[in-house]
Each structure stands twice: as structure tokens, then as C-alpha cells.
């Protein structure tokens, strides 16, 4: 367990923000931590959609249950938090 700063680039928001998370957090938890600083402040919630995390510029999202400490990210590295509509 270790505090781990990431830089959140949240879809629809205008600015990168510092978000403090933990290496033990799952990617869903990382997304929720990032959302705390964007959704309802400057970005409207999107009911029914979930949030996924990926490295900036990557196509693929990290698995939702992957722990942050396993993602190979550097401290303060920027991750994109992207809305994902449920697959039907």
C-alpha cells in the first residue's frame, strides 16, 4: 500500500487535475477518485455509463479490477478517464 499521485484527464473536463490514489486501488476506484473532482463540478454525470481508465494515448483500457500498482504507471503520469456506455 502506498499513496500514488496520478494526473487525471477526465473526458469532457477542461483541465488536468492531481488525484491522490493508492497502489492497491482498482481501476474502477481510480476512476471514481478522478470523477470526484470533475463530475458534478464541471462535467455532467452520465447515468448508466461507467468510467474506464487508460494511459494517455492508448486505445485499450486497463482492466477494471486491475490494481493501480500493477499498471506500470509512473507517479503523476496522466491517465484518461473515459465514459463507456454499457454494451448491449
Amino acid at each position: 500500500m502506498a499513496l500514488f499521485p496520478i494526473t487525471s484527464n477526465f473526458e469532457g473536463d477542461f483541465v488536468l487535475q492531481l488525484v491522490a490514489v493508492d497502489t492497491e486501488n482498482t481501476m474502477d476506484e481510480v476512476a471514481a477518485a478522478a470523477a470526484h473532482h470533475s463530475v458534478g463540478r464541471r462535467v455532467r454525470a452520465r447515468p448508466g455509463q461507467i468510467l474506464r481508465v487508460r494511459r494517455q494515448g492508448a486505445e485499450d483500457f486497463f482492466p477494471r479490477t486491475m490494481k493501480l500498482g500493477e499498471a506500470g504507471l509512473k507517479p503523476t503520469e496522466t491517465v484518461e478517464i473515459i465514459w463507456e456506455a454499457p454494451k448491449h
Partner: protein
Amino acid sequence: MAVLNRMDWYDLARTTNWTPKYVTEDELFPPKLSGDFGLPQNAWEKYDEPYKQTYPEYVKVQRDKDAGAYSVKAALERSRIFENADPGWKSVMKAHYGAIARGEYAAASAEARMMRFSKAPGMRNMSTLGCLDEIRHGQMQLYFPHEHVSKDRQMDWAFKAYDTNEWGMIAARHFFDDIMMTRDAISVSIMLTFSFETGFTNMQFLGLAADAAEAGDHTFANLISSIQTDESRHAQIGGPALKVLIENGQKAEAQKRVDIAVWGAWKLFSVLTGPIMDYYTPLEHRKQSFKEFMEEWIVAQFERALTDMGLDLPWYWDIFLKDIAETHHGMHMGSYFWRPTVWWNPAAGVSPDERAWLEEKYPGWNDTWGQCWDVIIDNVVDGNMAMAYPETLPYVCNMCQLPILGTPGKKWNVKDYPLEYNGRLYHFGSEVDRWCFEQEPERYAGHLSIVDRFLAGMIQPMDLGGALAYMNLAPGECGDDAHNYAWAEVYRALRATKKAV
């Protein structure tokens, strides 16, 4: 004829280069202070300043100018312009004085750097007068706001801002220290006088003077247009230096300095002048949009200045032309959302009428920044104020020290421009900021941005209170909405009407 004409003796007064004997030329003019372009003294003797003024002319003209500006101030002192001004306009003055006054005073020492270390005698004399000019600008822009300190604690920041770690001031110092306080004489002439003063101060001083006159603040309008008359003289110090460099095969080095300085100036203007012009200045007093000012003063005029000089447009000109319609909207949203961290009260500037103006000037505004403002406005209207404030820091750029931002909403394009250098991960707000850093990383790499300082534990406690204390901002100084959210009433009424329907 009993008195000589100026040009009879002007050249003698600038024939002052000599060959040192008791010290070497490199000792008298250390390359790191004089400009390491490998050019000997005699190459610089071709330097010819286009604006020629003698000492006696200077003291006479400046005495008269001062008499004008100070008498307007004295005449209007009892007019209660400040008391009666729109709160948005007061914020314009606070932001301007805090970010500018002591920076201008510091520029006196940048001029003194050119005076002492330039190998061009004409430059040394013109910088002597330029140094005096900057003392003038520092002193006037402290004396004029001092009149208002007893009315409003935020006015104390006209003096205090430069002594603080307030994030905008870290950015302002980083820029001014980079282009004028820590450069050699020739680089100062290119970066401060040619790039910043020719390119940008016209806009801050003439553009703002136009808005000030519209807003009825004649003291301020008069002050800053008087300052601009000095700027337009000493801004011409850099041009002939560029000419000498280009003639001696140093165009690439010259171009690089212009490109770095222009970008930094642009970023500073995007946070300082952009919000002032497009959001703080009351709608009815706006002469032109920020973008229109930029297009007239920077794009049209400065482009010509560059090409007249034989320089190229900066390599990033396409990026710049795109950004002048975008970046400052984000800078405004940032300084508004993080308003406790500035020393003025940002005006939101997003009433329905103002939004219509923004949409007209910046087509697509409602679908982008407007989307974020919709959420902010809802929170204000609902009284959900906790959500109308931040709980973390924006990530700032390791070059310009300003938030890393982009366009939100439907055209979301926010992006980090990272760089690993000597094992440390740096973040930049644009490709150009990163390029500036890479030109001379040793100038910047050891610097800690406010976010770096936070992460290093230098800001305690690690919350908003700790951050405000670190920025020397206390209640009574911290910014809040300029109009105390009065603008939200319209939205409240609109909502009531909708419900009624």
C-alpha cells in the same frame, strides 16, 4: 546658430567603445552576461537604434508626460470612480497591477543588464533611458493603486503579489525571470524588448486603455497609455540587435529566442489579459474580443515586425493561431473555479447576454466551455456551493507554470505533453511549452512547479487551507465571485419560468 542640433553630437555620445588593456575583452564583457554569439565589439558598433533621444530631451519629455498623468490622477481623485466601478472592472485593475507593477520595476534591472553588458554603445545609451522608463512604470503603477489600499484589502496585492507563491505569480515570475532577469544583454534585447514589448505590451496597454476609457476609468486609461509611449520607444532596442545577429550568421539563435519569448508571453496573456477582456470587462464596455485584439495587435502587427526583420514566423504559428480562440477560456474557467487562490474577484461573465456575445465571438462556445459552465451555474443556482469549488490542484505545466488545459465538452481535446528528463517526469501544457523546455533544459529542470512542491510536502497541511497559506492568501484577500453571484438570479428566474410553463 547658438545651439547644436541633436544629430550634430548624437553620434559622439554613442562612440564609447574602447579596447580594454588592463583586463581582457571577455573579462570586461563576460560572454554569459554580454551574449555569447562570438561577435567582437566592432561588429556591434554597427548597431543603430531607430529611435534616437538625448538625455536633455528625455528629462524634458518625461517630465511633461508625468505632469500629464499625475494631474489627471489628482483631478479625478475625488470622483469615486473606484468606488462606483463595476466589480469586474475592479478585478481588472487588481489583476493588472499585481502582475505588472513590480515586474516593470524588475525590468529596470534587465535594461541595466543591457546597459552594462551590451557591446553595442547605442544600445547601452538607449538602455540607460529604458532603465529609467521602467523605474517610472514600476513607481507609477504602485503610486496609482496605493490610493485604493484603504478601500479594499486586495489592492495590497498591487505591491505584495511578487513576494508570494500565489500560483499566477509563480507563473509570471517564471516567465519574466526567464526572458529578462536571467539572460545576457543581447538575449534581453530580443526577448524582452523585441518579442514581449513590441509584440505584446501594445495589447495590454492600448487594448486595456480602450476598455478603461469605455468603463469611465480615465485615470487608469491615461496612466497606461502614457506608459505605452515609453514602451514604444524602448521596445525598439532589440530590433537593431537582431539585425546585427542576422547579418553575422546568427539568425537561428535569434529566431529561437524570439520563439521562446513569444510563446511565454502568449501564455501569460492567456491567463491575465484574456479573462479581463472577454469576461471581467462589463459587456457594454468591451471594445473588441480578446481574439480580435490578438489578431489585430499580435497577428497582423507582430507578424509584420518579424518578417520586416528578416525573421520567420515561429514554427508553431498554426498552433498559436488556433489557441488564441481557445486557451484563455480555459484559463478563465480555471481562475474562476479556483477563485480563492487569486487576489482579485473573478467575474464569471456568463450571464445569458454574455454567453450570447461569447457564442458570437467564438462560435461553438456553448457546446464546449458552455457545457462546463452549465454545471457550475446549476450548482450556484441550487446553492450547492461545495461543488462550485475545487478539492484538488489543477496540474500545471513545468514550463509556463499554468494549468494544463484544453477545450472541454463536445470538442474535448485536453492533453498532457510529458517528457522524461534525467529520470524526472515533467508535464507540459502544449507541444510548444515542451519544446521551449528542451531548448535549454538546464535553465528549467531544477525548478519545482506548485504541484511539484505540493507533492514534495512543501505545502502543509496538504489541503486548500495549506495551499492558501503557502500562497500567502488570507481571508479578506482570497478571491470570490466579483458580483457575489448576482448574475445567477437570471438563471433562477429562467428556471422558475420554465417550471411555470
